[in-house]
């Protein structure tokens, strides 16, 4: 008989190994799924995981990994700070939208002036926008004890309405024949976040790298990072250690909001190019998966972001080359999180073959 036995200490080895085991299990069961759909599973897995990196057209897909991964990592880093402390910002998608609107708004206000200071101002505008949007659930929680999960999530829908209104009204391209959507910032040199489009490099990629480094230092070398971890792991101890919970909530939600806002700004000023009704494609929600897949650790998040980007890009190739339905790819991505959570149990429990007979 198989029994689960709680470990006295969470296993560090399993904590590191579960993401890898989850990826392997996803490959196996995803392959089975593809086989049931009548597709060659080995080929499908190769197309999804290998081709974007080393295939014939890798020179195009590798830069695309940066484009797809950067916003995921940037947002997930911010979220991980709060998640570590038990502060649940589920509304990064909304902060991402608002950051894009405020950042792009700053840039468009200067149009058609060309000047070096426009882009830095947009960056500040984007960060402030995301920060301010996250301050709503933060202040409500600190002042009235509301639930930040609900408030931040609901504000996503408010942000989406605001986005639609901006695309149809205030930020609409005056030369756009009445169609919704702002001017394309890719045609406006001073408001552009691309460094090299061919290399997939834009300032969002740089910002994501910087965020990873800063978050690592903050969590490992700084008092504030210690307080964040302490609050999550032992709230009572944190109280005795003099942690001010209100300030911590404001910091965690504010930081994640600002990073999500930055991600929105870099996206609108680069890969997407314009504010439109369908501007947001779910990075803010996918980043939650990335944060957990990366064990809330800065380096882990970097790897997890790259992996998610890989499944997106590889999934698209598999769709067009093998005729796999989009839903099968989404199931495949869902499996990843499912197996991660399932195998996670091995971190805290160990499997024992119980040979003793029950008396």
């Amino acid at each position, binding site marked *: 008989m198989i029994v689960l036995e709680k470990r006295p200490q969470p296993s560090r080895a399993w904590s590191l190994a579960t993401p890898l085991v989850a990826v392997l299990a996803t490959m196996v069961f995803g392959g089975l799924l593809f086989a049931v759909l009548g597709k060659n599973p080995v080929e499908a897995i190769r197309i999804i995981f290998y081709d974007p990196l080393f295939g014939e057209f890798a020179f195009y897909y590798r830069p695309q990994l940066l484009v797809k991964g950067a916003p995921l990592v940037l947002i997930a880093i911010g979220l991980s700070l709060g998640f570590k402390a038990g502060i649940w910002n589920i509304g990064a998608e909304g902060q991402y939208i608002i950051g894009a609107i405020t950042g792009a708004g700053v840039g468009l206000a200067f149009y058609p002036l060309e000047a070096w200071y426009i882009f830095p101002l947009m960056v500040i505008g984007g960060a402030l926008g995301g920060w301010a949007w996250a301050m709503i659930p933060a202040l409500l929680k600190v002042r009235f004890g509301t639930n930040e999960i609900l408030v931040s999530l609901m504000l996503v829908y408010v942000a989406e309405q605001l986005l639609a209104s901006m695309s149809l009204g205030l930020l609409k391209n005056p030369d756009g024949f009445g169609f919704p959507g702002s001017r394309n910032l890719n045609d406006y040199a001073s408001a552009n976040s691309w460094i090299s489009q061919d290399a997939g490099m834009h300032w969002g990629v740089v910002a994501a790298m910087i965020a990873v480094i800063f978050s690592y230092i903050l969590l490992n070398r700084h008092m504030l990072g210690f307080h964040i971890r302490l609050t999550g792991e032992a709230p009572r101890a944190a109280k005795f250690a003099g942690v001010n919970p209100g300030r911590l909530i404001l910091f965690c939600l504010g930081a994640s909001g600002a990073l999500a806002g930055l991600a929105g700004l870099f996206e609108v000023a680069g890969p997407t190019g314009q504010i439109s009704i369908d501007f947001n494609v779910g990075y803010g929600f996918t980043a939650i998966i990335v944060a957990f897949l990366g064990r809330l650790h800065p380096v882990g998040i970097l790897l997890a972001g790259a992996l998610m980007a890989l499944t997106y890009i590889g999934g698209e190739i598999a769709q067009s080359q093998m005729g796999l339905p989009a*839903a099968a790819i989404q199931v495949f991505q869902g499996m990843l999180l499912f197996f991660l959570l399932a195998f996670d149990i091995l971190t805290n429990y160990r499997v024992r073959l119980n040979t003793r007979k029950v008396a």
Partner: protein
Amino acid sequence: MKLTSLLTGATLALGLAAGGAWADKTKVGFVYVGPVGDGGWTYEHDKGRLAVEAEFGDKVETVFVESVAEGPDAERVMTQMALGGAKLIFTTSFGYMDPTINVAKKFPNVKFEHATGYKTADNVSVYSARFYQGCAIQGHIAGSMTKSNIIGYIGSFPIPEVIRGINSAYIHAKKVNPDVRFKIVWAYTWFDPAKEADAAKVLIEQGADVILQHTDSTAPLAAASEAGNVIGFGQASDMSEYADGPRVSAIIDNWGPYYVERTRAVMDGTWASVNTWNGIGEGMVGIGEITDRVPADVKAEALAMKDAIAAGDYHPFTGPLNKQDGSVWLKDGETADDGTLAGMGFYVEGIEGDIPN
């Protein structure tokens, strides 16, 4: 080296390397905004793809990617298709406009066809259907059949194409029923069955007994069916599975002939950039079977209008027509020009409410 030259080089090399195998097979790509099983917009585009396969058999290979978000994802999918050897790529949603233009710049030898947009290039055509012609017929049936005199309209996005449809339907409903009122709900989506169903329910609760929709799923018809005494129309596709229930007719997009013609042009080397806007006359817009629920005289009038539009004898936007603010738009007997229609951003007189902005 610039990516452009890199990409061209790569495709060239590929073309040479695999020339033998591909010489007699033209690869055609399709980018879809929804799932092929949406029963509406994307479903009809996919029928067009299948028509291309049926027409050319072994001479073509078609590929498609569904549910592609508008923006950088679309750009990547198109690039990937072009790298994969597609010679012709159909991008089937308005939001793919800028991505299509961007990718087309990098692949001057690949032809692109963008649906419902307005930006063209040497290797980018645009095509769209005159859905408003179908809306005129719907409006006529709706205005004749409503008992509550309230017609519900589910709009997707307040863009010219949708506003045109609302105006066209309203004008023709009003003509047969001066007391008719339109209630308009904006769903801000092309395909979201849950949202569309909610919109339909809200409209029905407000007294609408006819639901018109400019969204792609069958959910509004399902909601109408549930409510009982409400009728609706198929949008983009026939949606004939509801013919025993609320569906009394439909506007059908028929992309097949156009897709076949454009694919043939690429094969023959005669492809040129064009701006196509076809309607009932050319067969790009079809009117689904009008069911017996519609009174015989109304059905006859509707079919007569369809024939007149097809023959070019009747234009759905014929004056005298005023704008919502009361100013004159078209004088008696004057018809709207395509330029005004393409960028239509106003309601005609009598429609209540504002276009959101």
